[in-house]
Structure formats: structure tokens, C-alpha cells
């Protein structure tokens, strides 16, 4: 009988420090979190060509040859050029639509070929690729503004409008294998 009278101990777990523990964990994850979004220039490599099949013929006018040497000097279709005019040259070349007999027949046929040497620094190559991507981005934006009145970036991925513009200006970029030496 006496035993029953003894005050029972509190059966609840003390909850007041729960917030502190949660805060500690929270701060740990806050510190270690790096919300870094992967950004970069996307590209689709061409598959390895079949040895038995000939590469499809490409008309000379539909090909824009860009050569970059180890010093970062640029040659567009055998003419020396500087990096900041590359974008305009590409836009002119792709959006020619057969007007100039030396430039592409249509944006669909136009191929931009980038060739570097093995010694070319990577950032020079990226700068060049960036210019090419920039030229295509501007052309697509222009077409998108004309047709739909909104910038190209505003379309959702895989939407009808986006695909239409992409078909209008397909990115045909060829990365040539550099020569030895």
C-alpha cells in the first residue's frame, strides 16, 4: 500500500531541447550545402563513322571553316579574323538563305566547323564555341520574336514553339580532330 503512494515519475520525454537539436542539425546542413547548378555548353558528338560508308558530301559553300591556333588566332574560311567578329560572320553565314553564292544555302544546310590544334588552350576553344552558340542563340531569338513575339528562352522545354525554332536553326557544329603537332 505504501508503495502506491510514491509520486510517479514524469513519463514524458522533455521536449524543450528538441528545437536546439534540430537547430544544430539544421546549421550543419546549411553549412555543408552547396546548391550549385551545373552549367555549361551542351554538345552532341557525332557517332564514330562506319568505315565502309563514305561521309556524306558537303558543298563547300555550306561549310564555314574556323581554325584556331595555339596562340588564339582565328582563321575563318582562310581569312584572318578576330574573335569579336566571329559571331557576326556566323550569323551572316547561317542566315544567308542562298543570297550570297559563297555562303550557306539555308540554315538547315549550314555547318560550322571548328578546328583547333592540339596545343590550343582550352579556354580559347571554349571562347570560340561560346561565340558560335551565341550566334545561334541570337538567330533563334530573332526568329522567335518575329513569329511568336517572345524571346526564345521563354518557351518551355520540348514545347511545340521551341522545337519549331530549333528546326528552323539547327545547331550543326562540327568539331574537327586536330592535326598532330
Amino acid at each position, binding site marked *: 500500500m505504501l508503495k502506491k503512494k510514491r509520486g510517479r515519475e514524469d513519463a514524458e520525454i522533455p521536449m524543450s531541447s528538441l*528545437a536546439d537539436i534540430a537547430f544544430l542539425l539544421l546549421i550543419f546542413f546549411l553549412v555543408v550545402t552547396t546548391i550549385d547548378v551545373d552549367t555549361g555548353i551542351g554538345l*552532341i558528338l557525332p557517332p564514330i563513322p562506319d568505315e565502309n560508308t563514305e561521309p556524306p558530301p558537303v558543298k563547300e559553300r555550306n561549310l564555314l571553316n574556323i581554325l584556331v591556333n595555339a596562340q588564339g588566332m582565328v582563321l575563318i574560311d582562310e581569312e584572318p579574323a578576330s574573335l569579336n567578329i566571329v559571331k557576326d560572320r556566323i550569323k551572316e553565314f547561317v542566315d544567308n538563305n542562298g543570297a550570297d553564292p559563297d555562303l550557306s544555302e539555308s540554315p538547315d544546310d549550314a555547318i560550322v566547323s571548328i578546328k583547333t590544334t592540339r596545343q590550343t588552350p582550352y579556354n580559347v576553344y571554349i571562347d570560340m564555341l561560346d561565340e558560335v552558340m551565341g550566334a545561334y542563340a541570337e538567330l533563334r531569338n530573332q526568329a522567335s520574336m518575329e513569329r511568336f513575339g517572345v524571346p526564345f528562352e521563354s518557351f518551355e522545354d520540348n514545347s511545340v514553339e521551341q522545337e519549331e525554332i530549333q528546326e528552323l536553326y539547327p545547331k550543326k557544329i562540327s568539331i574537327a580532330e586536330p592535326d598532330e603537332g
Partner: protein
Amino acid sequence: MAHFEKKQAKTSQAVPTSAMPDVVFMLLIFFMVTTVLREVELQVQVDYASAENIEKIEQKRLVSYVYIGPERLGGNQVGETAVQIDDALVDEMGAIRNIMYDKLVEQPRLIVSLRVDNESEFGVVTDVQQELRHAGTLRINYSTRREI
């Protein structure tokens, strides 16, 4: 003489804190889910190049990384340009195609993100790209920072 009692609001002035753990747990779970602990130990030094016309990769689980840059030696020294996939340096270029092919079988929509040091020569990158073409992993992405 009239005695006015000081009027006091009857409501309790304490902020209710009983819901605080819930709020904190919500935040905690958010950060736990978004956290990506550093998955690889870098053995090569990579300073990203920067570019303007870049795109985001939304689906991170499709991505596999290839690091190219000067090998990190002890101290602050760097050695020859090396290629690292996952946790190990690749000794021979020819091994890349097998590694990447295995990855492609696991994830058919694989995107290979090339994280190349901006001082590297393009020749190494070409060799890796050739290997990727042999492996059939054709979707690549040159990791770059946004140019400011």
C-alpha cells in the same frame, strides 16, 4: 479619489514556441534533401573556363563527370595533365571507353560533363572525346562558369 487600474491586455504576451521544432524540422528536411555531399575527391586541379551562352543541366542524376586538369601533387605543386573519372585517375586513354560504356548501359540517357581546366591543351580533350565517341556517350557538356 478614483483609482484607475492600469489597463493591461489580457492576452498572453509570450510568442508560442511549441511549433518551433516543427518549423525547424521542415527547414532541416529541406536542406537534407537538397544537400549533395562532395561525391569525389579531386585529384586534378580544375579551374573552370567561363562562357556566356550556357545552359543548365536540370537532371543531375543523368550526369557523369570527367575531370581533366594538371595532377595535384603534394603541397601546391601540380604535375602533368591527367584525366580523372570518379575517384581514380585514368592511366590509359583506351580505358575510358570501357568505363563510359558501362555507365551508358546503366543510364542510357547519360550526359558526360567535361570539367576541364582552362589552361589545359585541347589535345587531351580531343582524345577523351574520341574515346567517348567510341563508347557511344555522345551527349556531352563542357562545364563552364557564367561569365560576369
